[in-house]
């Protein structure tokens, strides 16, 4: 982006410990506590370093991450035991702890900063601009990086309509999946008669394998709040709600603190910054229902009912929460708004493709080397994301597909890897942008089973209100389960297609209309796998247990013993350096040996 996002001025040594979800699960919080404790124990400081626990840096694979500023040093996979060495060598002496640096897999060079790695170099942070740089619990950190300046600018120098015009000109489209132009939505709410008007932030991130919104709420809650205040000012709303999954403990905690701090600083509440404009935000904790990510279901849930969607003859922007005009946008969308207002629509619109502007955050997971969160300009190709940023497929296995868009999306095969990603290109490929999950699958992933997995997920989440979705998903699940169990019938493929088409046309809400996508996209690109299951009773990936028997190829086996060590049911026998054998009667077909054999000696019969 041409306009700069403000950087911190570090005039003091600062230690940033990543305490995002991934790093915390890996012990990041303990590393932070160790720093707090041990920094106190040392007495030789000229100036004591500042310690901060930050939100998710995105590079979960290498966590817990510790960054030392202003020298911009990044240490990977840090444990509490490493803290002493970091303090002594780096903080006090100024030298590097080489063993904790990231080592480039190709050049074998140790890289002192994460900015030099392929994972970060190709990213472009807009929505995630502050995450990992600030302590999400401190409003001062956000303000120091230019926070709430957009709000002051808008309240004192722009009319509501000018804010909407700026958002329209930026080309921002909803990041929750639909891709509806945000400015158009706001205009319709502003023009709709009726008071009060409401603003909702949709933080009910339900797609399995996606955690972008969670990271934003946990790592930079004020940007969401500032975006919402700007939206409220633009459309003339007085009350806002953030609907967030209750499982997201940390997000609820930080958002709550952020709202309180924003109030005490005069950014929320009556007469914001003496402008005469008043607005406040309340947090609503969701009850764990995937369908509540759908706007009308979410509104029902906030009102205190079961989260069942309604048909959208009238959009929520005209009649939403309690029948009043309501703007609902997703977390990432809100996070982009302050940047657009502060740095101008043009600079935002200069990034991306002609139809999709700005950047998109993806959670890159599955069988990929660098699991984590990445933010790239719209129009970046899948190949760049998976192979350059993501470092390719785990264990150098063969890439098979990438699943985008969550349960409503589809699987994209290798031949489409050079597709520049934006809202429209993915829809054309039979998938969708969705909220931004990218799940990489290798040749050990069974595409029929993946389709069954998603349909099974949706079977549990369909609210049951309309028949095509409720019964259609059940029928799809029955057929797919049958195929995975080796009982597929020749007419099944056709039947899957027919049910899918009916569901797409007749379901009430987007959940039902998009539910067949995983089935249709796998049928489109991986039909041969379906046929292998049905006709030859084989699962080429070795996943479907009824169709799989593993054996060890005596010619390829070196007798290294790795499979024997990893078998949890002791089904593998053999002496070192001699061919091993699998006892089929004991084997539970978990595939651990198959996936881990370095010589590809474990095969499927």
């Amino acid at each position: 982006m041409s306009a700069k996002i403000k950087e911190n001025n570090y005039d003091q040594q600062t230690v940033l410990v990543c305490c995002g979800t991934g790093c915390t699960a890996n012990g990041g919080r303990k590393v932070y506590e160790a720093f707090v404790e041990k920094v106190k124990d040392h007495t030789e400081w000229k100036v004591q370093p500042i310690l901060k626990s930050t939100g998710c840096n995105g590079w979960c694979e290498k966590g817990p991450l510790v960054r030392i500023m202003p020298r911009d040093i990044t240490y990977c996979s840090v444990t509490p035991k490493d803290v002493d060495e970091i303090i002594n060598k780096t903080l006090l002496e100024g030298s590097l702890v080489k063993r904790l640096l990231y080592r480039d897999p190709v050049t074998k060079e140790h890289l002192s900063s994460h900015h030099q790695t392929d994972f970060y170099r190709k990213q472009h942070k807009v929505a995630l601009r502050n995450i990992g740089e600030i302590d999400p619990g401190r409003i001062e950190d956000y303000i120091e990086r230019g926070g709430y300046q957009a709000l002051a600018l808008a309240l004192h120098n722009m009319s509501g309509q000018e804010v909407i015009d700026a958002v329209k000109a930026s080309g921002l489209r909803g990041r929750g999946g639909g891709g509806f132009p945000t400015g158009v939505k706001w205009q319709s709410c502003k023009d709709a008669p009726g008071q009060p008007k409401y603003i909702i932030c949709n933080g009910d991130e339900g797609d399995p394998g996606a955690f972008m919104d969670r990271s934003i709420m946990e790592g930079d809650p004020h940007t969401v709040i500032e975006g919402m205040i700007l939206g409220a000012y633009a459309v003339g709303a007085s009350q806002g709600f953030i609907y967030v999954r209750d499982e997201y403990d940390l997000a609820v905690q930080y958002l709550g603190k952020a709202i309180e701090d924003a109030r005490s600083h005069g950014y929320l509440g009556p007469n914001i910054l003496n402008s005469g404009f008043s607005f406040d935000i309340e947090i609503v904790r969701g009850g764990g229902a995937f369908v509540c990510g759908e706007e009308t279901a979410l509104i029902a849930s906030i009102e205190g009912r079961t989260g069942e969607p309604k048909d959208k003859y009238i959009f929520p922007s005209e009649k939403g929460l309690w029948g009043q005009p309501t703007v609902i946008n997703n977390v990432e969308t809100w996070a982009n708004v302050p940047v657009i207002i502060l740095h101008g629509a043009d600079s935002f619109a200069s990034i991306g493709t002609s139809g999709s502007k700005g950047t998109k955050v993806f959670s890159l997971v599955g069988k990929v080397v660098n699991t984590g969160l990445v933010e790239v300009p719209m129009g970046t190709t899948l190949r760049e994301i998976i192979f350059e940023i993501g470092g390719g497929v785990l264990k150098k296995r063969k890439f098979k597909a990438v699943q985008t868009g969550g349960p409503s999306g589809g699987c994209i095969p290798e031949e489409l890897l050079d597709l520049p990603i934006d809202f429209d290109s993915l829809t054309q490929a039979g998938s969708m942008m969705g909220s931004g999950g990218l799940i990489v699958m290798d040749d050990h992933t069974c595409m029929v089973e993946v389709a069954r997995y998603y349909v099974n997920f949706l079977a549990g989440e369909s609210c049951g209100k309309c028949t095509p979705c409720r019964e259609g998903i059940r029928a799809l699940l029955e057929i797919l389960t049958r195929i995975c169990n080796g009982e597929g019938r020749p007419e099944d493929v056709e039947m899957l297609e027919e049910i899918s088409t009916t569901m797409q046309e007749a379901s009430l809400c987007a959940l039902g209309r998009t539910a067949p996508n995983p089935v249709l996209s796998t049928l489109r690109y991986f039909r041969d796998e379906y046929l292998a299951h049905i006709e030859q009773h084989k699962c080429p990936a070795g996943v479907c247990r009824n169709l799989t028997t593993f054996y060890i190829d005596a010619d390829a086996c070196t007798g290294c013993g790795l499979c024997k060590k990893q078998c949890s049911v002791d089904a593998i026998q053999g002496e070192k350096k001699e061919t091993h054998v699998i006892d089929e009667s004991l084997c539970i077909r978990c595939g651990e040996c198959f996936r881990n054999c370095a010589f590809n000696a474990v095969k499927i019969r």
Partner: protein
Amino acid sequence: MQINPQEYAEASRYESLIKSYPGRPQYILAIMQDLQKQYNYLPRLALTMISSHVGVPVSKIYAMASFYKAFSLTPKGRFVFRVCDGTACHIKGSETLLDQLYQHLGIKAGQTTEDGQFSLETVNCLGACALAPVVVVNGKVYGKVKPGDLEEIIRECGGQCHVS
């Protein structure tokens, strides 16, 4: 509402929690979440109390309690195994973990052992995909779990594995 003496003590425990929210339907979800957190399930008596507090029929309250995944109408075990079945965990073998837990504990997802020690649940995604597959036991996160690790985890909780 008629409350018998035995229930009186129970009711007074729920009352302060329920009354801490205004008596409007929009707070039903929040009240139920707090109850679920405190008691690990939604007691029947509490549901009727919510109903009269917010002025919504108990049938509607029940509909919500059974609709949202966060709530349970029966008490959970002392140790709750939550196996993440998000996509990343799924393609890295979470199904095998569920199978193995069934072998060891004799319960499937959604069930509790008869002695009330263990419950097994699946969750859609914990957002810790870098550690897939993930199992969480009473808040403690176990990452990159292999089928063979489960016995040890069960033993840590003081449980016995069935020999299968």
